[in-house]
């Protein structure tokens, strides 16, 4: 059996399914439901076994169409930065507010992806988010929490 990344993913999925199955068996059901033909843990248990079955098959059967990925050509740095920016965005959106965090998220994303046309970057972040926010909050009446805009008196 050749060890390739697909097999490793299948192995990880096998372990994940085993964990899922273990957790499924731990689901607490009502006493009167314990021996019922179907309770809250029945379907997850079937799913756990199905996961073990399919990932097990993928592990043991030969894989004629091995996918080879050239890791040297993958842009891990930019992707990582983009994910990091998104995480920071998620962490600050509630405290700072939608407008500022979203605008900064867009501006930073353009910058790290290599964009240097500052005016365009600005137009497609701050005014763009303001217009979008007006559409959601002003026209569609979808409430958007924004402590920053509230603190400067733009939002009520």
């Amino acid at each position, binding site marked *: 059996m050749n060890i390739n990344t*697909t097999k490793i993913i299948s192995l990880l*999925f096998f372990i994940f399914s085993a964990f899922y199955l273990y957790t499924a068996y731990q689901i607490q059901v009502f006493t009167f439901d314990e021996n019922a*033909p179907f309770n*809250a843990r029945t379907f997850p248990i079937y799913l756990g076994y199905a996961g073990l079955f399919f990932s097990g098959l993928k592990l043991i059967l030969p894989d004629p*169409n091995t996918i080879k990925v050239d890791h040297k050509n993958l842009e891990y740095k930019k992707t990582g930065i*983009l994910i990091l920016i998104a995480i920071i965005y998620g962490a600050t959106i509630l405290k700072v507010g939608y407008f500022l965090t979203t605008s900064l998220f867009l501006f930073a994303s353009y910058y790290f*992806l290599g964009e240097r046309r500052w005016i365009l970057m600005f137009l497609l972040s701050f005014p763009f988010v303001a217009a979008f926010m007006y559409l*959601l909050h002003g026209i569609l009446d979808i409430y958007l929490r924004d402590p920053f805009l509230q603190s400067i008196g733009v939002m009520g």
Partner: protein
Amino acid sequence: MIEGILIGLTTALTFQNILMVMVGCFFGTIIGMLPGLGPMTAIALMIPITYGFDPATGLILMAGVYYGAVFGGSTSSILLNAPGVPGTVATSFDGYPMAQQGKAGKALAIAAWSSFAGGTLSAIYLLFMAPSLSKVSLSFRSPDYFALMILGLTAIAAFSSKGQFLKAMMMVVLGLMLASVGQDSLSDITRFTFNNMNLTDGISFVLVVMATFAMSEALTIILKRNDPTSAAKQVSLTELGSIKINKEERTKMYKTIPRSSVIGFLIGVLPGAGATIASFLAYGMERNVVSDEEKEKFGKGSVNGLSAPETANNAACSGSFVPMLTLGIPGSGTTAVMLGALLGFGVQPGPRLYMTNPEIFWSIIMSMYIGMVILLILNLPLIPYIARILAVPKNYLIPLILFFSVTGIYVMSFNNFDIYLMIGIAVVATFLRLYDFPMPPLILAFVLGGLMEENLRRSLLLSNGSWEFLWDRTLTACILAITILIVIWHIYKTFTKKN
């Protein structure tokens, strides 16, 4: 019936109702285009507005939003590979590759015409078959539904190309596992939440779809900087292409549209099924009936592969009105929201709706024709402008996709946990994509998960835990036989290809 049609026509053709269809279609198209904001959000937002209208006008407006959002959803599927509407996930399989080849305009035109034809044909079916179809859908029982879900999931084999059947099945199981997170629908027992309150209500569909399609697509584009397809992506970003459909493509559509509209309509009529299953089944069926040469094009920009789900999802939209109006059972999540509105108007849906409120039933059917014409008039001339989204450079497009994804999730829950969860799922999905693990089976399984468990629960409880329900009813047995045939056919094909 003639009298009902005339009443419906008179109501639908009033200036106010035509205006409502137009407003609904326009508003729906824009909302549907924004990934994360699908017809459910759009219709839910409409409910307070419609309380000022009479029931027929209110429902006509919401129906217009529905068609518009489905069409708008297919637009974002084609241009951004970011289906905000579950029913247009299958549209992205061939629509997005076509856009990447610089035929975005053509893909949108095919989608527009297919939607128009699917919607119009199904409105005709609805007109003639509504009374008898409600009887057919009434005859479906839980075992039949469960078998239908199994069939739907097996049909994902149609999406996975050579050597990917097991990968697709793993993704199916993963999708079902994700769907099992949260409160059990019957006992309210929480499962797989690990004492995290944010998971009590389960994982939202939009979150999973945004993570596995929009966000992971954006990350994949960045990650594969030297990937050969990135050149094609760059070309597609600058070349919009013509919206003209040539004779050969039209011929293909003439064959695809009638059969897909029938599938779409019939699936749409089934309570709980709706546009998503319809589009996936139509795509799967189309792939199985076309020639081997055409089959090879599926997933790479096939006209049939784009036309089939687009026809079916619009046909299903019309079909889903049948159980909602006649039985009070919604055919989809969107019609469930509309059902709530109907009850808010004081209209009790049921078999007697024809007699008690004929103007509501028939005016909605009549407004479907008008809505389809308006959608076509509205969208075809606008296609070149809509397609301009592709002209946005990658450095801007990627952050904008991320922005729409995150906003879509944030607006739904106002919770940063969902944003983290989406990022986590997107990272895993990006990694899985690198190794050709298909995402559509995961999405379909996620959509069907809850419904599947409910029907299995009912079937097992009714049969006292015995699995005999699988062959007790002829209909269930027939659906399962088709499922087994599909599996056998795939195994046979795999072996014959190897040999």
